């Protein structure tokens, strides 16, 4: 089976990938044809690795047909191929020892979030993120100190959700853009139990016709958490940060639903092709 991806590898492309994957029953190999990709966003990049992981979990061998040289060097800088190596096969077209110059470093390359029982994984990610943020955003007049703090805090908080609430490892990546306007984009994904299953035991009886979209909306309310002792700060604060502090956009996909939140509006999508886990895209616009 071949899944062709063209143009921008973003959340729209990820939906197409999911839709195609739903028809993968009976195949032993899925080829992601990335040769027509012209631009890669963190969410799309993580989507591709998550799709490969999903195939792997189903016993289907994922294979990648590489994109153009320009895109491939970017994906290399984002650490994509090391991660892809865990789940599938790609055609090696250039020496992967290619050095990455300091100024070419992304805000956060594709990073596996695997905390296990402790906190060391998250602390390691936090340290890298803090260093990069200082290097790339502090002193940039497009981002206030409060915005920089908000970006770091929210990424770290959502990463913690993977193990604790989704009960799965996941991936995170972030990139800073200058054109057409100063923007930071972040993608975080897992293949875990999803928001509805995470909150089900505690909240299903409080809501009629429990569904993925209702669970996503509920998760954004303060103090709603699957933890018995409470909590519920992560997604609530993230949506508040995006709506009130940045002119950005937050996309939360889980199960068969998706919620898009911006400072101007909220759009919900139900009945999408089912995909396990939770997938989050943040767009933060500089002033």
């Amino acid at each position, binding site marked *: 089976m071949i899944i062709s991806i063209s143009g921008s590898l973003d959340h729209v492309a990820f939906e197409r990938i999911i839709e195609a994957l739903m028809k993968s029953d009976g195949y032993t190999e899925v080829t992601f044809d990335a040769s027509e990709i012209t631009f890669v966003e963190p969410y799309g990049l993580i989507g591709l690795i998550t799709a490969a992981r999903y195939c792997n979990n189903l016993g289907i061998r994922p294979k990648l047909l590489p994109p153009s040289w320009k895109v491939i060097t970017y994906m290399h800088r984002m650490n994509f191929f090391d991660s892809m190596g865990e789940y599938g096969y790609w055609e090696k077209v250039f020496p992967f020892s290619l050095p990455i110059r300091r100024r070419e470093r992304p805000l956060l390359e594709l990073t596996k979030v695997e*905390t296990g029982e*402790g*906190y*060391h994984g*998250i*602390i390691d990610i*936090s*340290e890298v993120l*803090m260093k990069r943020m200082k290097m790339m955003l502090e002193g940039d007049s497009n981002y206030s*100190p*409060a915005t920089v*703090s*908000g970006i*770091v*805090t929210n990424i*770290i*908080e959502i990463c*913690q959700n993977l193990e*604790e609430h989704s009960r799965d490892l996941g991936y995170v990546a972030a990139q800073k853009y200058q054109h057409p306007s100063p923007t930071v984009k972040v993608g975080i994904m897992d293949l875990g139990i999803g928001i509805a299953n995470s909150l089900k035991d505690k909240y299903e009886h409080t809501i009629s016709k429990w569904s993925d979209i209702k669970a996503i909306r509920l998760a954004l309310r*303060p*103090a709603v958490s699957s933890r018995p002792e*409470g*909590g*519920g*700060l*992560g997604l*609530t*604060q993230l949506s508040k940060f995006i709506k009130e502090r940045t002119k950005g956009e937050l996309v939360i996909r889980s199960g068969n639903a998706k919620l898009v939140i911006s400072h101007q509006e909220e759009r919900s999508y139900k009945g999408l092709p089912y995909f396990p886990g939770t997938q989050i895209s943040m767009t933060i616009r500089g002033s």
Partner: protein
Amino acid sequence: MLSVMVAKELEKSTGGKLLATRPLARQVREQIIARIQEAFNEAVVELNFSGVEFIDYSGADELVVMLMNRIINKELGERYLLLSNLTEWHRENIKAALGINKKHAVLEVRSNELFLLGTVKPMLVEVLRAVYNSGVDTARKLSDATGNEINLSGTKLLQLYQQRLIMRTEEFLPEGGRQYKYGPILSAPLVV
């Protein structure tokens, strides 16, 4: 006053300066609680955040909110909490953690002034000001200053004491009987 350097406690756990994740903050909180329990005679505990590079919402919830919770529940004896050397980043995230359940508030000392983080009922804000800035220390004085009945003044002072935002001592009167005296946790003007 017991001054606890949070960065030093953090260093014992990770060797780093980032206070992120619930498990790490829980560990640091338990270390700090052990220090508090050793200091029998120190009612005021200052958490000094100097050198802590970062605290996330979860870390703030586990360390500050949960510690305040235990203090209010009298699990650690008669204690009062103060925060110091907060950066803008720390303050934002501690406020977010305090804001989630809106149950507790805590005082921050900054440039010899006190600031309230978290929320208290609007009717209690005036009382806080009276205690910190006008030297009001009894229900009777508060009643005289506000024109409220003495019982209501007493209730308001009691609520602030129960939230551990003001101190309380018991005083025996020369004419017999006793009264509670209230006072600031730290002698500094409160900016609310």
